[in-house]
């Protein structure tokens, strides 16, 4: 191995050491976040902590700013005020592409619509982050990585060479998940991963997320509308309403609060159905 390559490797290792996910109790800390578009204030003094290693569900009515919250955490949306820290890095560093490169490889993001690159096959989509951060990885290993990631998210064996336009809705979601897992991130952002899936598909997806999180020790920021998802996968749930996070806790804890929206949400007909038929309550107990 030549000296030049040695040096590059050393540099890379130094960068990889800059962020050490396991050294933090909280993966994400948000204080006093304010987001607005023109006159419309979306978040006003929002606080939220995401613990390392937990699956945090984020719920709230349509248009309460769940996606906007996620976008501000990952630096796609500049907030009007407030502090955000991801693994000890502050917002300015997050929003800066160069400075946050080592942070960016610690997280995977799955967008609401999948956001797969339409001109690349599923396997190539998965390889995009790998090539970006580890350009010297050989093609054979890249192909093997793509193949086992495809397998891990439960896509069929022939999905790798397919293009996004050839996939069903559920497969697009799984492919999006596979791409977000490409770099073995410590932190995973999922924006409504089960929206638009049939109940069976959604349940399988929930299981998959829980399983992956357990296997890989992930911290997951899971935006969802799906009560079944909440019961099945989340360790804690944050409720977004009135431009703030009005409550965070296990579902049992949330049920004990008086807030009318929370009561409506969990005790409405759908909430009761999800709670009633749920096997995941024990999972909860196991976790907490």
């Amino acid at each position: 191995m030549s000296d030049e390559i040695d040096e590059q490797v050393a540099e890379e290792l130094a960068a990889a050491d800059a962020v050490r996910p396991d050294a933090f109790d909280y993966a994400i800390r948000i204080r006093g976040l304010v987001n607005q578009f023109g006159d419309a204030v979306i978040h006003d003094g929002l606080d939220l902590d995401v613990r390392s290693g937990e699956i945090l569900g984020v719920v709230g009515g349509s248009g309460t700013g769940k996606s906007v919250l996620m976008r501000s955490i990952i630096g796609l949306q500049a907030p009007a005020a407030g502090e955000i820290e991801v693994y000890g890095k502050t917002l300015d560093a997050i929003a800066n592409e160069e400075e946050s490169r080592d942070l960016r490889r610690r997280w995977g993001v799955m967008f609401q619509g999948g956001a797969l690159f339409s001109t690349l096959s599923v396997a190539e989509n998965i390889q995009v982050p790998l090539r970006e951060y580890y350009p010297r990885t050989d093609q054979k290993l890249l192909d093997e990585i793509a193949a086992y990631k495809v397998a891990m998210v439960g896509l069929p064996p022939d999905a790798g060479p397919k293009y996004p336009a050839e996939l069903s809705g559920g497969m697009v979601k799984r492919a999006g998940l596979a791409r977000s897992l490409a770099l073995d991130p410590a932190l995973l952002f999922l924006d409504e991963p089960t929206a638009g899936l049939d109940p069976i598909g959604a349940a399988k997806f929930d299981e998959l997320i829980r399983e992956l999180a357990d296997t890989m020790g992930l911290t997951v920021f899971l935006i969802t509308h799906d009560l079944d998802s909440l019961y099945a996968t989340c360790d804690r749930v944050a409720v977004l309403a009135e431009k703030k996070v009005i409550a965070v806790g296990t579902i049992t804890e949330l049920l004990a609060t008086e807030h009318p929206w929370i009561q409506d949400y969990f005790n409405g007909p759908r909430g009761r159905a999800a709670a009633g038929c749920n096997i995941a309550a024990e999972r909860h107990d196991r976790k907490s």
Partner: protein
Amino acid sequence: MVAKADFEQSEGADGADIRFTGRLTLARLGDLPARLDALGPIASLDLSALERIDTVGAWIVTRTVKEHGAKVTGASPAAQRLLDALASDKSEYRVHRDRRPALIRMLEQVGIASRSVWHELIGIIGFFGAMIMALGTQLRARRRLRWNAIVTRFQTVGVDALPIIGLMTFLIGIVVAQQGAVQLRQFGLEVFTINLVGRASIRELGLLMTAIMVAGRSGSAFAAQIGTMKLTEEIDAMRTIGVSPMEAIVLPRVAAATILMPLLGFYASICAIIGGGVFCWIGLDIAPLTYIQLLRDIIPMTDFWAMLIKAPVFGILIGVTGCYEGMQVRQNAEEVGQRTTSAVVAAIFLVIVLDAMFAVFFSSIGWN
């Protein structure tokens, strides 16, 4: 600093015993896979000294186990979970499409390309037919033409194009006059420059340049707009609501191009003549008034009719080609680009071919 992934090796009876150290993760992998591959038989893999392992590390372990039949020892619970998740057989998971030999693929490409030229032509003609049918249906059902949509296009296809078309043909007028004058001066016939500029502008140049410009500006825009609408399923949504995309999207665009081409072509011809006139005035000392008077004698009315007959045909051609190519988009953003390119290329090519045919036709009916 944490060292990159590495291993210690000791020779046993059945092969090497490998003991991994450091972090077996993608970030620290370095050339470890290659070094591992280079080894002979491997009897066991010891993971107990690993600080951390990720799925890539686990994959390397799994792969080695499969190749050498090696045993894994000392896996932490977390590592074991990863290994279990990757344990099932992945050999049937494919990454690439089947590749054929290069020669076969090259021949295939040539075949596909030649066939697609033909298909494209048939497709455009078929699309034109479908559009006429849609127009027929619309008129028979006594639904009014969508004048609002057409007039909106007037702005983008016509008015917005005036400056660039004017400037371009003005300059071309100057160039033609200048080049013509240089040649004709050798015979002392400089005054015939006016014939050259006048007739060429009205009959060919003005309209041809306009057609190229409109194909580049608007034909491409039609293809890109419609292609994007196909991608976002807007066209499908329209169909399901019961709005015919032919009626709502295609016809207004083609109609706008058809109506505007004669106007733009005439305008372009005039600009070219003005350009030629400016050169004649400055370069050849022919006063503007004389220039205009001579033009009136020189340019036969048939030149003007020839232009007016060709113009709408070119307009239809450009509009139909643009819309047709847009409608062919099926899959992805890349295709929008390709289709937009072919819309422009096909439109310009067909315009020039048709123009040549018109030229032969007009001269054979005596419009010289």
